[in-house]
């Protein structure tokens, strides 16, 4: 019913806090600070994780979209699935694709090298992603060269170093040419 200030006035003592009061205040503040810090750390971690997830999802999506687009333009008779030295089996694909206008072609290669996903064209090579964990190309049936399954997983360690986030996508791409 009554505010704290009124209580102190009632007692008629000199203004100030009792030791008990101070201790209580410190304890409360300490608890709050501790909880707040812990919470903020967790929140930060969550944010990190989330941004990492978003990042590799974006990586995965854009890499997959890029690969798909490239593969759809491929002449299926020119496809070779292999791997770079010391890389997982079937982690590289080479093909000739038609470039604008239809008549001209160029050779394109997508491959894994360590954590990097590369795309190599006569114009040079560029990194598509450096969070790659595994890339593999398979023919669901080697008798049907028109269908290729692409599987890629990406992984990014968050700032803490102890948590990982993983995104894996598998798509089947039908080669039109």
């Amino acid at each position, binding site marked *: 019913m009554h*505010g704290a*200030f009124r209580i102190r006035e009632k007692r008629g003592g000199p203004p100030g806090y009792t030791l008990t009061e101070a201790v209580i205040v410190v304890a409360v503040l300490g608890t709050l600070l501790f909880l707040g810090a812990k919470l903020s750390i967790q929140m930060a971690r969550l944010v990190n994780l989330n941004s990492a997830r978003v990042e590799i*999802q974006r990586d995965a999506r854009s890499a997959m979209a890029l690969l798909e687009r490239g593969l759809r333009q491929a002449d299926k008779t020119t*496809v*070779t*699935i*292999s791997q770079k030295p*010391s*890389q*997982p*089996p*079937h982690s590289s694909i080479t093909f000739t694709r038609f470039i604008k206008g239809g008549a001209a072609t160029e050779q394109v290669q997508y491959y894994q090298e*360590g954590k990097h996903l590369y795309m190599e064209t006569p114009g040079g090579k560029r990194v598509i992603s450096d969070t790659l*964990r*595994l890339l*593999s*190309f*398979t*023919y*669901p*049936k*080697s*008798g*049907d*060269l028109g269908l290729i*399954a692409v*599987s*890629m*997983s990406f*992984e990014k360690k968050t700032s803490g170093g102890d948590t990982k986030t*993983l*995104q*894996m996508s*598998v798509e089947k791409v039908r080669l039109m040419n």
Partner: protein
Amino acid sequence: MAVSRVALRSDGFTLTEVMIAGLIMTVAFLGMTGGFMYIARGSQQSNTKTLASNLAQEQIGLLKTRSYYRIMATTSSASDSSFSPNMVYDKGYYPPEKIQVEGQIFERRTYVRKVTQNATGGMEYLSWNSPDHGLKEIAVYVVWQDKGRWRKLEMASLEQNPRRATMSARIEGTARRGGTPLANVRVVPLEKTSQAGLSVSPTGKYNFWIEPGTYTLHASLSGYWPQTRPPVFAPAGSPVTGQDFNLAWMQRGHISGSAFLRDHLVISEVCAGVGTDDVEYIELYNPTTWTWRVNSANIGLQVAAGGSSTVTDLTLTGSADVDSHHYCLIGTDSLGAPIKYGAIQRITAGQGGAVILLDKATGARLDSVAWGSSNSTKPPPLGGVGAEGSAFRPTTMNPSATNVGGLTLNQSIERKATRLSDRDSMHGAEISAGNAWDRNSNNLDWVHNDHGHADASSHGDYSPLQSILNSETPLAGTPARGAVVFAKDGLSGPAVANANGDFTLTNVTTGTWNVYITSDSVRKVTPSTTVANGVITPSGPHGLDETSFQGYITGTVKDFTGAPLNGIVVSAAGNSLPTSADGTYFLEAPPGVTDVVANPGQIDPSYLEASINGVQVDLGRVKKLPDIVLQTGGAIIGTVVNAGLGDPLANMVVVASDSVSGVEKGSVLTQTDGTFRIDRLPPGTYIVSPVLEDPENESSTPLSQSVPVSSFGGPFSAGTFTIGGATGYIEGTVRRNGKPITTGVLLYARESPIGLNPPDMPPSGGGPQYFGATSDAEGRFKIAVRGQVSPKYNVYAWYWEWQGNAMVPLPRKAYEGGTAVQVQPGQTVTRNFDW
């Protein structure tokens, strides 16, 4: 007081104020949070919807790449009451799939229904087991849960059969003769002869399915007048009934007659002496339609005496033009005939003898006659000299009390006017008939005038017709033995003239017909002969005096037992006629080489078509062909269904091939009820198999069936072919230390072993194919392989693990050799890989 206390306070908030402020701030904060969440969720939902739409489109796109018949209508469905109305979807052919995209779990469901377009253009759904109308609707639902509520995205697409015209119209009717139902009447729509109905016993009803359209129905049965109905429109759906036929029986009669060849001069009478031996004569008759000039340049005459083989040439003097049907008398000078051969008698009375008539231009013998007693007292010339067939040896030439024997004075031998002529008729009823009967046998062709009268009166024993003034119409001639006689009435078959030239054309349809009589290069087309029901119409005698410009082909059509087949159409050089009751046919054809086809186009579905190729037809000649044996069309029947609930598969191609040569002998499409019938197969053993559209992905059980077909009975069953997916699956988990591997493991299955590392793809050097897959984020994999009992599949897995910053390959895992995996079509086999 409380008011003043509040007004006085200036050093802080009351607890109430703090609480109210806190409350307001909390509400505002909650509101803002809610707002943010709402926006976030909205954007999330929109994203989810896009994903769902992609998934639905993907499934529709996938199904649409299949051929129409491989899009299976849902036969086994599930219903989900989480939606209103309940969501129905396929759980058989296209079971629901769980798909995880960007952390959201979707379930994709498919529902395929047969649909038809109704009269108003609207769509109607059909049950899966109703006939296919060439349209299917593919509906795809993608469902997901959002905050505990089920959401769905629905997409539908129609797939039309590009090829098939639906047999959705039906025509029905009854065939009768008078009021009596008539079986075996074949009703054919002239616009589409591949479809036909056959009336059945005892109701006479027929029916058949056909594409919707307008059709002119034509009914036919051998022995009946064919009938055509006015065009009728057959719509889809409701059958067209009452397409009845009342066939009229073809009434028949017969034509009987005789046919003769009259192509040469004949010796018509020989007299050895009139009063005295020196007055003798030989009388010739011209039965042909042209004039013969008789003189020593053109005609040769020879005589021979009885008991001798010596032939003496007569020296003819004088010349005479003997017109058609006229006589010419040749005799000794004292006779006073136009043609003379001297004063000395050459034919001795009271003896046998012979006269030979030659065509000097060719040296050919035109005619001859030899005579003598029937016993050996007065024999004809020796060695058959002058005889045509058998010499004329009547008993009246035997010596007797009143007769010295042989051809005595005042008697003559005379050629018959007709086959039945005798001594008396020749001087009676046939006194004015030309003496032309010439069966090429003297014994049958001549009469002996032995009345004992020596005058030239009506009963005279000799009555030479003086020279070229006299004309008599021939009633006979050389019998046109083997001449073929036919009428184009469509029912009767050709008749053949017998040795006497007689023929009877039986079962001629009533009406007026020309009768064709043909023998070698001559023929006769008689004037119109009217045939009445059940009556034998006489015709002729006919002399075959027209030149033929055609050749003729004749033969017999039989079944494999040797029984003649009636009513089988035989065609050659554009002419067609059905065979007669005795299986014979007779066709005109221009000279040259032609093919003769019996039952062309299998007009009679009970028999196969047969032909004789390269038949040489000569002008005016009748070419007799070997019998054409028609094989019964054996039929193979069977059914093609889809694996699962046995949904009939329409329009599957089914082929029957000869089991020995492998040559395809027949192929059909299955009907809407999945059944097929391959007709008209010659006896033999057939390999029957459905033709798979995509042998990699579907299989038939059994793959093929060997069916023996004999000529008897049938149809022969090939049983049921079940078409199922050829795909089987190898699935399982991949784990490392008991935990699922989430980054992907490369897997391959192959009939043959694979080396330590998979080769570059596509593989070079042939061999069995590789079936590949990568495990998913949950450590599961599924390899689709071609299902088969053998060989088994070797399955391999390759996993590269990250250890620190390096990738390290773990040893390859395999099921191979003894642990290879058998996967049958439609089967799913589980194999796990653990590192």
